[in-house]
């Protein structure tokens, strides 16, 4: 690989400084602060803290409510990722095969990713509201069929759907790019070998899409752990009865509503560790395994 070098090191330093300041101010500084709080007992109104070692972690890990939020986060991550990846793949295959109207899809599909999570949450809150719109009609025909405000499973399904909807666009772009980078002649060779459309998809296109697939999978799972906050906050606020109280939402809840800064800090350290581990898996194992050249 060719690299460009700066002859003067101070010019290089000058150019990376703004970026470094931003990263330090908004990432390393808060992260180190959280790290510090996680090992101390922070007073709700500030003014001194006591070193408590691993007590905060012990308290969290022995708390059933915490484990329930971990479980819910996993359900949300797997549910929304499966839905988002599956839908995006189907749509990308349609566009790649240039079925009727594929140009309209292509543009329409990219928009949802540009919408902020809380806006998505608000929109879906109206769509799934049991007392208005489509779902009200459903409830009129089948009384009490849909009520995410009372039914925890339905609430979870609702946030999964909203989270997936937002993520589909991102995945779609990657899948489409992946499909279009498969040489046309491979598909033609498959056709000459007697494989029909679905067979070619299964034997040629999908295996060649594997690197994209795993990349998207890991990104989706990590995103669903951290990015779900906006959707949960606007749609369910963790309810009903903590049925959608995901890890990231519980951190916010315990920290800013419960004023348990130290407990929240310890939870965010665990979450950060999880995301780092997933990223590590992505780079270390999956990327290496699924490349052909």
């Amino acid at each position, binding site marked *: 690989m060719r690299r460009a070098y700066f002859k003067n090191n101070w010019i290089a330093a000058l150019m990376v400084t703004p970026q470094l300041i931003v990263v330090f101010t908004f990432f390393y500084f808060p992260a180190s602060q959280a790290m510090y709080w996680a090992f101390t007992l922070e007073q709700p109104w500030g003014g001194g803290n006591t070193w408590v070692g691993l007590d905060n972690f012990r308290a969290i890990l022995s708390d059933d409510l915490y484990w329930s939020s971990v479980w819910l986060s996993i359900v949300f991550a797997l549910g929304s990722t499966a839905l988002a990846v599956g839908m995006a793949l189907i749509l990308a295959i349609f566009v790649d095969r240039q079925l009727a109207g594929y140009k309209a899809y292509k543009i329409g599909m990219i928009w949802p990713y540009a919408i902020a999570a809380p806006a998505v949450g608000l929109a879906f809150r109206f769509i799934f509201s049991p007392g208005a719109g489509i779902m009200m009609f459903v409830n009129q025909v089948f009384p009490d069929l849909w009520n995410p405000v009372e039914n925890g499973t339905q609430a979870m399904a609702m946030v999964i759907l909203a989270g997936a909807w937002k993520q589909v666009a991102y995945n779609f772009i990657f899948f489409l790019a992946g499909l279009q980078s498969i040489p046309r002649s491979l598909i033609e060779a498959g056709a*000459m070998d007697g494989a029909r459309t679905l*067979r070619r998809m299964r034997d040629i296109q999908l295996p060649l899409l*594997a690197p994209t697939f795993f990349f998207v999978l890991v990104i989706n799972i990590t995103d669903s752990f951290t990015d779900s906050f906006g959707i949960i906050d606007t749609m369910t606020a963790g309810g009903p009865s903590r049925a959608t109280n995901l890890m990231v939402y519980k951190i916010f809840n315990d920290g800013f509503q419960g004023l348990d800064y130290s407990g929240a800090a310890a939870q965010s350290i665990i979450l950060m560790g999880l995301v780092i581990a997933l990223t590590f898996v992505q780079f270390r194992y999956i990327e290496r395994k699924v490349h*052909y050249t």
Partner: protein
Amino acid sequence: MAQISIRNVRKSYAKQEVVHGVDLEVATGEFIVILGPSGCGKSTLLRMIAGLESVTSGDITIDNRVVNDLEPHQRGCAMVFQNYALYPHMTVAENIGYALKVAGLPKVDRLARVQAVATSVGLTEFLERRPGQLSGGQRQRVAMARAIIREPKVFLFDEPLSNLDAKLRVQMRHEIRRIHNHIHATSVFVTHDQQEGMTLADRLVVMNKGVIEQVGTPEEIYHRPASVYVGGFIGSPAMNFLSGQISAQDSAVVLANGAKIPLPVPLAAAHDGQFTQIGLRPEELALVPAGKGAFDAAFEFAEELGAARLYHFQFEDLMLTVLSADKPAVEKGKPMGIRIGAGAVHLFAADTGKRLSAKVGSRERELV
């Protein structure tokens, strides 16, 4: 084994027609090479036979069955692609056996056939490798094996050698011919390399701008090009062209500067007064002292080829090339005589570019 007929086949993309009514008959077991510059429609024609492109109008039949609307695999064709098109995620054995797997052949039979075909193309040691771990020539063999294993009626080649280096290309050319002599499938081979075309073909098809210019054996095409285009395209170094007017009285072509190139009497008589392009192959010209040849031209420079040399001359406002094995004394700017060998003159009509021949009575007699 199959016979292919192409009848008035046309192909258009949107409003643009790229193949303008092609007719071609390919006999069973024949090796046909379609030769032409890039963009002449030769690949499109091949892909229409394969079923990878639809036919806009006209018919393609294989063994008297119209195949226009059949899926590629129903036509009994196998194809070798220019970039090999090997499946990168499958091993060599899986690549070769894929068609059989799709056809639902049991694994035991499949492996036996893969083994047999791999042996015939010398790939046995590489069966467990992926295409990415093979050299260009080995990939080419895999592509061939993948086509052979289907025991196709028709073998199609889309410039399969163009990605190989010169030495390997010659080697693979021999390999292809050897395989053809062995399995005798009807073959259509598309290339822009005239040497490949001349050496491989039973019959050559020269295409240009979406039409067939000439069909014939390589020998016929070299010795009797049907048009200025074919004359200029086939043969290396390229044919020289001079313009002049036919005179029956002199029984010659009279060039603009008054020099005369003698013609057989019947040929000159048949086209008296016509403006013409004369094609002269560099290898049929000889260098003689000034004034002793058909005309004189000023020497410019020479190129060494080893066994012979190319001598370049300035004649009027054209460059003229002579291929000569002996070493005449030449000097830059000095004139040399150019002698034209017997039967070396190819005459083409100046307006249509078509070959001119002598017509005697109702019979067409070829005298040149």
